[in-house]
Structures are given as C-alpha cells and as structure tokens.
C-alpha cells in the first residue's frame, strides 16, 4: 500500500470545504474523556479510541471529543462525560470500550441516557 502523506489531507479538506466551515465546536454534542493517571491505567486510552472509532465509522459530524484531566475519582475510572446540545451533562463511570460504544449508540445518537452506568448528572 502506498504510504499516506500529509499532502493528501489537503484534498480531504477541499472535498469537504463546506462542512469544514461549519466545524465550530459550539452547537455540537460533547464527549469528554478523563485522562488522569488512574484513568490511563484503567484503560482510558482504549475507551477514547473506541469512541473515536465509532465517530469515524458512523460518520458522526455533530460530535466533538476532548480530553480533560483528573477529577479525583480514581475508583470510577475510566470516566467520560456526555453532553448533548441542550441536554444535561452526564458523567459515566467504569467506561470500557464496549460501554463507550453503547453510550454512543444509545445516548449520543438516540438521546437515551444509559442509566446503569451513570455516576452523576448535572
């Protein structure tokens, strides 16, 4: 396989010019993955990768994923929070890659909170 070069990214941009312009993070659903030391040790990177994978595969245009630091709740790591536009901010605990995929399908896409994994709601 021919190796990808960064030049090819330009083509992606040109192709998607119109939606690149609409790429401001406001007005998008937000997912935050907590990346403290315990989070990473508990598998937060794999959780984050599963989230990115779902976004990529399902072509979710309206979601932004960011990372945040530790919030001092080591025993519940990996932790992620999900906030849909206009909805509450929901903190999920012990988010394995499998749970993350479920949260995307059920909460992010269908708007139904996955209650059994919720740690708190704001």
């Amino acid at each position: 396989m021919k190796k990808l070069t960064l030049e090819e990214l330009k083509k992606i941009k040109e192709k998607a010019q119109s939606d690149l312009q609409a790429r401001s993070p406001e007005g998008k659903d937000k997912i935050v993955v907590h990346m403290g030391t315990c989070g990473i040790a508990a598998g937060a990177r794999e959780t984050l990768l599963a989230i990115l994978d779902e976004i990529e595969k399902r072509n979710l245009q309206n979601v932004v994923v960011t990372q945040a630091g530790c919030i001092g709740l080591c025993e519940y790591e990996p932790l992620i929070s999900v906030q849909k536009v206009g909805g509450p901010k929901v903190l999920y605990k012990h988010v394995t890659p499998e749970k993350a995929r479920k949260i995307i399908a059920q909460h992010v896409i269908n708007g139904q909170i996955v209650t059994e994994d919720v740690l708190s709601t704001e």
Partner: protein
Amino acid sequence: MKELSLHLLDLIENSIEAGAKNIFIEINKNKEKTVLRIVDDGKGIPEDVLRDITNPFTTTRRTRKVGLGISLFNEVITNCGGKLNIKSKVGEGTELISEFPSNHIDLPPWGNLADTIYALIVTHPEINFNFKIKTEKGSFEISTEDIKSKLGGDNSFFDPEVIRFIKSYLNQNLGGIGI
C-alpha cells in the same frame, strides 16, 4: 501500566495540565538505549515539588494528582537501570529527559505509540504537538502545525474524515520504523 506508550500519554497529560501550548516530544531508540525527551512551555513545577516528584509517597496524595504518573514512570525505568531527569522553571516550562536500556527484561514494551499520538492530536487541537521518533529502522516526525496548515489554519479539526486520515497516516508511517 502495561505499555511505555501509556506512560508517555500520562507524562504528556502532565504538560497539558500545566497549561502548555507547545509540547515537543522526542524518542531516540537504538539497540542499546532509548532517550525520551519531553519539553513543554507550561507553568513549570515549583522547586519543592520537583524535589520529591519522583517519590510515590509524596505524590500519590490526593492533593497532588499531577506527578503520580511521573513517580510510576520513574519506578519502571530505574528498575531497568535507567534514569529520569526533570528540569523546570516556574513560568517557563519543563523539560523531562529519560534514558534507559532499550531491551531490559523488566521494561514494558512500547505498545501502540501510534494510538497515543492519535489520541492526543485529535482531542487537543489547541495544543501544538511536535513528535520526533527515531529508531534504527527510520525516523518519523509529525507536528500539529503541519496538519493545521494543510487544513488551512483550521483550528478544530474534529471531523470524521480528518480523524480517519490522521489515524491511518500514523499507523502507516509509524508502523514501519518498529518501536
């Protein structure tokens, strides 16, 4: 942590937590030894904290979450005969340099370095990362500024197509240099 690439992710998270805007990461690995260098322009670590940052008894306290990862990493590499050096100036930034044998029996494998870089780059568009990785098999370099300029200065490159591209780009280009 099972992989050095997870330690690396954690160390870089410290820089981010310290408010760094530019983070330079260099890995130089040959048959005998590996040198890892992380330079950031974050707020720096005060001297008294720096003095015992590698000590797990002072850094695992709940009140000091940043640093726990440094002591874990320090423990791993000193067990392999490696060493860790941190220079920091409050208000200027921090430089971490670590040198350790590349193939010590107790050294965790690098694991998926591409995943660590990918995870960092796509979720922190506000930070300029510059990764330089060199092994006997070749070298690889990526900077977020390059990506941004290819995207026309776009600052929020969170888009399914863009993240897909970055992921394959990293896997293909980093795969060949064997780390």
